[in-house]
């Protein structure tokens, strides 16, 4: 077990999401930066799909009641085991009785913590992800609170074997402040005027404070419409960029509603979701257009890095 001494600002149990139930209105949830969570899992010898913690801005304080191998990826929130700083993107041993804490944000927004054996909460509809709207999954469908106890699963191998491994920098997503994100135009870009589309693709949009796992409200040059009809509500993909009447786009993420009726100017490609997950209010986003196939190839390349890491880890070659 891991005892939650302090919960942090907003910490939830997540895995790669709850797929197959969107037709019943159930959102996918899951890690906002699925790559970082997968990498953390691989570092401690877990399957990629194991559940870990998604930690937002201000980290929790966790007391380990038994020894575990851990890895923290994504944002740098300055983690420490007892009094010692620990590296990110690396497998570290936390001795029984030790405390993991976070000193403060240095870069990024969301850190991912994987522990050997994974967070062993019950699966709901095939997933351990916390789904806030449905109030299920993870720990009672909610963020962590002080005094919660997090059950750790049994690790298949000896977790000490993984200690010291690290995930090479060149295999990580190209995290950066104020990124340019790649989008596929549509499915309803014809609702917008040429001027509106030009603004969307040539001027920056700032992440506002009204941004969470459901979506980021962005602020910038209003995206004007040419078609005045209303869109009929349709299914929403991850990364949908919808534009309500005020012209300010909303980027919809993993806790989004399954259907929606604002016109959709473009859809973010999955390879760039990790960059979004690490964006903070005030950061500026720019958008550039790719084809669906270019988006797919970018995804295959990025996720291929997890396979590359696995191969190097198995062959025992130094991976850093």
């Amino acid at each position, binding site marked *: 077990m891991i005892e939650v001494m302090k919960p942090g600002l907003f910490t939830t149990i997540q895995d790669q999401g709850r*797929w*197959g*139930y*969107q*037709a*019943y*209105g*159930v959102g996918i949830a899951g890690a906002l930066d699925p790559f970082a969570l997968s990498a953390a899992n691989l570092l401690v010898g877990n399957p990629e799909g194991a559940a870990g913690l998604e930690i937002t801005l201000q980290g929790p304080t966790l007391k380990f009641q038994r020894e575990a191998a851990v890895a923290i990826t994504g944002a740098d929130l300055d983690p420490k085991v007892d009094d010692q700083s620990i590296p990110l993107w690396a497998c570290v041993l936390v001795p029984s009785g030790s405390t993991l804490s976070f000193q403060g944000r240095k870069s990024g927004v969301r850190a991912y913590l994987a522990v050997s054996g994974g967070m062993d909460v019950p699966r*709901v*509809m095939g997933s351990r992800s916390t789904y806030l*709207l*449905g*109030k*299920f999954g993870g720990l009672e469908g909610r963020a962590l609170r002080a005094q919660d106890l997090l059950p750790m699963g049994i690790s298949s191998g000896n977790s000490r074997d993984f200690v010291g491994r690290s995930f090479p920098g060149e295999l990580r997503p190209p995290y950066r402040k104020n990124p340019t994100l790649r*989008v*596929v*135009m*549509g*499915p*309803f870009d014809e609702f917008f005027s040429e001027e509106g589309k030009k603004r969307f693709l040539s001027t920056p949009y700032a992440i506002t404070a009204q941004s969470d796992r459901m979506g980021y409200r962005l602020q910038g040059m209003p995206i004007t419409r040419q078609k005045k*009809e209303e869109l*009929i*509500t*349709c*299914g*929403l*993909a*991850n*990364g*949908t960029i919808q534009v309500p009447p005020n012209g300010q786009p909303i980027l919809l993420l993993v806790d989004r*509603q*399954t*259907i*929606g009726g604002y016109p*959709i100017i473009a*859809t*973010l*490609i*999955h*390879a760039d979701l990790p960059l979004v997950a690490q964006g903070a209010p005030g950061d500026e986003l720019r958008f550039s257009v*790719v*084809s*669906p*196939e*270019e*988006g*797919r190839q*970018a*995804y*295959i390349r990025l996720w291929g890095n997890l396979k590359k890491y696995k191969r190097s880890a198995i062959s025992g070659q130094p991976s850093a």
Partner: protein
Amino acid sequence: MDEDPRIRPAGDQALLVEFGTEISPEVNRRVQEFSRRASAHKVAGIGEMISSYCSALVYYDPFLLSYSQTTAWVKEFLGSRPAEEETAVPAKEVPVLYGGEHGPDLAFVARHNQLSEEEVIRLHTGQTYLVYVVGFSPGFTAMGIVPQKIQAPRLASPRTKVPAGSVGIGGVQTGIYAVESPGGWQLIGQTPLKLFDLEKDPPSFFQAGDCARFYAIDEKEFKKKESGIRIQAKKALGPVS
């Protein structure tokens, strides 16, 4: 009406098959027919689908399929559309306690349409509805078309909390909030049925394409049905020893 559906990209791992641009039972039936058949005959790489009023969102696995391959599959599938086998679906019956604290907007809907509350209930329970879509929040069920005489606009400012089971009218549609959530429809009643149940597969009582009919119950029946659900829920947990 039977023109070829339009296929639109929705990012790098999904596409939208659009069968029309209106809310109508005819268009929605084509969406449902496609989703039902496609879900049953899925090929490797085709993922889940979200069917809505006039379109279906189809996810695909980027490691197995490209956008053009998925488009080709959808087109081929649409081309192989068999002669319409119209299977009449029996309507699922939904008990509703209308008005009062359970339906705080019943009076408004009546006033808006210059009817008595009883008239609104009579019209609302007087026909069978087609379930257009299940979604937005878990199990939320939207159906239509509501008789013109009891249609009512959505609230100018949505409620932040609508209780589970609430039955509402939103424009030409009527629907049920399966779980507590924010919502902007006019609430005319509440059903004691549990429309979203984690213990069940599928978890949602309604699925898109179902037919539904409402009937009015009184406070006593509402309480009885509600407690019936609680007893069932206890049984499902098994004996406590």
